[in-house]
């Protein structure tokens, strides 16, 4: 299949849908069936993506990284330096295109039902189209600049969609926060790009003159800056993929309509960070990889712990998303490109499913709520949560009842389709072995991390593995907590329960399709077969340098050098054999472990929330002293922000507070300081000093003018004195001179 035309169609179809809306808007009108326009456009894109995928199917080996098809043209011809812009088509692109178009199409369809009746209904679809375009553009770009463009565009779409219901303060705040927080990361990415550009005079990734080709020739002396550049690029991913410490925007982003959460904040945009990191894989050094792995690992664990205490169904999913993205980052940082991207794919489907499912629930509950309270007639009321109420974990006030799991329960009877599909997704995310896609991808990650740990003997990777495993347990726990609280048991709020109903077909169909995609057939098949791991030439390089400089012993004390030493050994010995044996070893550990993880996680969850053998309240009560203490020491936390870091170990609920108080606090604090402090000071400085200086000069000038004026007394003899005195002075001065 021809690549360029198809990609062009994929890009242009959603863009055209948006342009249609935009141009029409200028005349002050809206086309009420914008939903159809956008959905059809998306479906066209989907068909094209499928067609493109046939290329991969046809030549599975050719379209790996080495054989990536690049179609670019010069975008910014500056003379000696040219920036090109073009399509990169390889198997990863093909898979990403497929994922994005599928999820996007389904979300479009779902939204037709979900957003029905919204006054800005056409606009919603137009924005979705614009987002799809941007995301696809990001995916097909063959160079960093193009990726950055798409990157920012998805960011702005996210901004527009989070703030879709901008009349409320919460979405208005959330969208700004999302944009700002990701932009901080983007600046890091931009600096990284500047570093790469300055070194390589290009931002293209592949090709003989591309960054990767040029970077492979770098020597040990360049490793430091290459690591820095890698980490800086990764900063962009940290922002976009909501990794710690820039993750706080994502939970708030749940203020957006739920389909948006599903598409942007679960399946695609947030995964773009992972995609970017994966794309930069060949230039990652040992150091930058380790940073990435740690950020991913910590995020995975921390976010999972936070998720345990949430009652808002969407926030649980949001933290879950952060956590899963952490897994992906961990994979890439641990050197497993395939596992990372694989998890990205599987996660896209099951997480989109989870969000849409939750949307379905919210929609149902909203309808119930609506029946109960006639004041609210917009879908968005269902999505509201007052972000200011940090007591959410403690207190039910502030969470919209339609999203509060404590109001739910027993919904499996009312919403069977939603229940079944969500259950499938939950099983998948929990990693129930073999049957569900989530198992395969998560398993792959754990295996890879453990394999690195074993074969390199790296302490870091053992730690990372432990974090990942623990996170997996917690994931299983909180996800089933969600299922149990929502669908199982008895209804907690009978009134709302009574009003709930199964969603209409156009919302249910996407759920079903996504549920199908949560089974491993499609994903595993495509990944194992088509995606090939690229070389990472610089993972080994520092090793040489070390040995050559004779500092091996010193370096060997550090974990990382152990890892490198091990890797070096692997490299020098029969690498393949070693690889296989270590890999098998890891695999043999992880698969049984997965069973254990799932059993512990689901079991605990069931014990708490299904069988109710343990009371969550009781546990909370046992921990309450810590809690009450912390809760009552509200100001204390603020006073000793730094101390909170130590308290993170105290428990997941502490982490919940930490999240709200500390990171947010820093962001807000910085915001306040910058806004109130610096800018005011700058403004003041500007007014008083810079202007003042000028005014001062003017004043002096005036004053001198005034004095001269006073000399002009009007008395003639004073004038005469000036004349004669002037003559004398002139003579005396010039007599002194000559």
């Amino acid at each position, binding site marked *: 299949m021809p690549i360029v035309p198809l990609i062009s169609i994929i890009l242009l179809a959603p863009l055209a849908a948006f342009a249609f809306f935009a141009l029409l808007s200028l005349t002050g009108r809206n086309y009420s069936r914008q939903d159809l326009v956008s959905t059809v456009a998306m479906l066209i894109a989907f068909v094209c993506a499928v067609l493109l995928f046939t290329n991969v199917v046809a030549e599975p080996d050719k379209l790996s990284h080495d054989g990536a098809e690049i179609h670019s043209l010069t975008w910014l011809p500056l003379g000696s330096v040219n920036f090109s812009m073009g399509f990169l088509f390889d198997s990863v692109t093909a898979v990403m295109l497929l994922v994005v178009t599928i999820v996007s199409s389904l979300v479009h369809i779902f939204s037709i039902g979900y957003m029905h009746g919204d006054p800005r209904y056409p606009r919603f679809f137009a924005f979705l189209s614009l987002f799809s375009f941007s995301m696809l553009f990001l995916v097909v770009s063959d160079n960093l600049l193009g990726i950055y463009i798409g990157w920012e565009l998805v960011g702005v779409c996210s901004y527009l969609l989070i703030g879709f219901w901008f009349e409320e303060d919460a979405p208005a705040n959330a969208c700004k926060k999302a944009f700002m927080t990701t932009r901080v990361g983007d600046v890091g990415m931009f600096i990284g790009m500047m570093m790469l550009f300055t070194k390589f005079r290009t931002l293209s990734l592949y090709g003989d003159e591309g960054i990767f080709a040029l970077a492979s020739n770098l020597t040990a002396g360049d490793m430091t800056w290459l690591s820095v550049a890698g980490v800086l690029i990764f900063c962009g991913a940290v922002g976009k993929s909501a990794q710690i410490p820039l993750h706080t925007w994502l939970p708030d982003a749940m203020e957006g309509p739920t389909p948006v959460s599903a598409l942007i904040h679960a399946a695609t945009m947030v995964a773009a960070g992972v995609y970017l990191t994966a794309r930069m894989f060949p230039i990652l050094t040992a150091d930058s990889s380790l940073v990435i792995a740690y950020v991913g690992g910590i995020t995975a664990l921390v976010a999972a712990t936070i998720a345990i205490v949430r009652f808002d169904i969407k926030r649980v999913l949001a933290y879950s998303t952060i956590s899963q993205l952490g897994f992906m980052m961990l994979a890439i940082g641990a050197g497993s490109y395939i596992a990372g991207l694989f998890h990205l794919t599987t996660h896209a489907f099951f997480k989109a499913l989870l969000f849409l499912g939750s949307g379905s629930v919210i929609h149902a509950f909203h309808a119930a709520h609506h029946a109960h309270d006639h004041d609210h007639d917009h879908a968005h009321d269902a999505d509201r949560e007052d972000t200011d109420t940090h007591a959410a974990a403690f207190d039910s006030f502030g969470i919209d009842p339609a999203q509060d799991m404590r109001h739910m329960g027993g919904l499996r009877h009312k919403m069977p389709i939603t229940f079944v599909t969500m259950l499938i997704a939950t099983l998948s995310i929990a990693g129930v072995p073999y049957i569900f896609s989530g198992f395969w991808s998560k398993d792959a990650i754990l295996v890879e991390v453990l394999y690195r740990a074993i074969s390199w003997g790296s302490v870091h990777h053992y730690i990372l593995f432990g974090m990942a495993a623990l996170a997996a347990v917690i994931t299983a726990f909180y996800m089933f907590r969600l299922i149990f609280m929502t669908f199982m048991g008895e209804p907690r709020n009978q009134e709302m329960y009574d009003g709930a109903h199964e969603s209409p077909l156009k919302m249910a169909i996407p759920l079903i399709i996504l549920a199908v995609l949560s089974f491993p057939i499609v994903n595993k098949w495509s990944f194992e077969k088509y995606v090939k791991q690229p070389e990472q030439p610089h993972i080994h390089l520092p090793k040489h340098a070390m040995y050559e400089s004779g500092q091996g012993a010193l370096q060997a004390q550090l974990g990382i050098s152990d890892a490198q030493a091990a890797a070096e050994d692997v490299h020098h010995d029969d690498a393949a054999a070693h690889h296989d044996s270590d890999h098998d070893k890891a695999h043999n550990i992880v698969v049984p472990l997965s069973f254990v993880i799932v059993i512990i996680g689901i079991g605990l969850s069931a014990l708490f929330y299904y069988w109710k053998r343990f009371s969550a309240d009781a546990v909370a009560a046992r921990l309450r002293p810590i809690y009450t203490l912390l809760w009552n020491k509200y100001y204390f936390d603020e006073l000793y922000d730094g101390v909170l870091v130590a308290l993170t170990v105290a428990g997941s609920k502490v982490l919940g507070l930490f999240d709200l108080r500390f990171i947010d606090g820093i962001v807000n604090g910085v915001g306040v300081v910058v806004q109130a402090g610096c800018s005011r000071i700058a403004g003041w400085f500007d007014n008083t000093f810079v202007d003042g200086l000028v005014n001062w000069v003017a004043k002096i000038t005036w004053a001198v003018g005034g004095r001269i004026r006073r000399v002009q007394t009007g008395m003639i003899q004073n004038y005469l004195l000036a004349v004669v005195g002037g003559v004398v002075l002139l003579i005396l001065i010039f*007599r002194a001179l000559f």
Partner: protein
Amino acid sequence: MPNIASIPYFIPEIVLVVFAVVVILFDLASKKRGGEGAAYLALIGLVVAVIAAIVIGSEDRSLFLGMVRLDSFALFFKVIISVATAATVLFSIRSVELDPATKGEYYALLLAVTLGMYLMASSTHLLMIYLSLETVSLTSYILAGFLTHSPRSSEAAFKYITFGAVSSGTMLFGISLLFGMTGTGDIMLISSRLGEMFSQGNVYPLAVLLSITFILAGVGYKIASVPFHMWSPDVYEGAPIPITAFLSVASKAAGFALFIRLFYSGLQSADASVDWSLMLAVVSALTMTVGNLAALPQQNVKRLLAYSSISHGGFLLMGGVLLTSEGLQAILIYLIIYLFMNLGAFFVVILIANEVGSETIDGYRGLVSRAPLIAVSMAIFLFSLTGLPPLAGFAGKWILFAAVIKEQLYWLAIIGLLNSVVALYYYVRIVKAMFLETADDTESLSFSTGSLVLLLVFVVPTLLLGIYWNPLYELSRASLGKLMG
């Protein structure tokens, strides 16, 4: 050239004298005193004198046994002075300040002062220099005090004469010292003798410095340079406006003519040891700075323009300290341009004083709605005085600074240009009043066609000379003639 043979070349001056007498006689004879006949007669006299001067030409001649010199330089100034005088006559016709009863004498005196200025431009003997200076001064004193019923006018005249008498007395003393050292009054001879004396070391430099500085008191008072400027704001404010205009242009031009001839023909050789050019550079910097700064707080437009004209004197003086022909050319060009823009500005002041009865800036408020043409013209003059392109003032400033920078007197150039920024501020105050403020009285003002035409006579050159000033340059080069080496 002997006395009798000189007379044909002296016709312009003679014409002026004759017409001065005729004007008085005509005025005495005419029944209706205070008519405009005397003015037009004076005008005719001026035109005839200028035509005569041009017809006689500018071939270099020394007349009356070395007393005066006829050359292109003198011709240039004669024309400038005549134009300024003619403008003053035309202004005077329109001025309501002047007592119609004495206008005959007034015009005669104007012609007499013109004669004095002609002589200032052409004198080559110390005695003639002093004599011409006194002729101009005495007549100016009278003209400044010409207003009846005006204490201001009398006070102006009193200050003027006191100041002038002391300055010229000082100058005469300086002249006597110079005469004593060189034994001659002829400035060419002085120049060569001073040169000899300096080359032989047969000189006491302080004596030369002293005499030059004393002479400078007289010259400086004429061109109103610091510290000899103090009379001018008071006199300008008190004198009839046409006379103020006349003093600020013609008197200044004549002063510069005298200055250039005396210092360049007579004292240039003294510059080597008595660095009078540096002294004048300092004076020039002080003059423009003091003029500008003092202008800042002024409320009276006449007085403001007086200070402005002091600062312009400083600008002009910059060209005189360079000892280069470029510098002198710059003075000549600047004078032409200054003639138009300054006279134009004063003419507007006259018109406003006539119609609004106010000389203060407040009187100019909202002028644009009352008399748009006048307001726009005034703005053009003021911006030209500031030296903004594409107005003529810029051309003048440009040539002047080009000459200064060529001699690498960067400090002087920077002071000068910063001064032009300060100058903007006070000129703009008037513009602001005219354009940005609203008048208390919104009745529109009407002016006679003659006045408007006369105004255009000043506006058009101010605009055109800013756009194309090559002829000015050629003219100034030709006018400089053999004055420089």
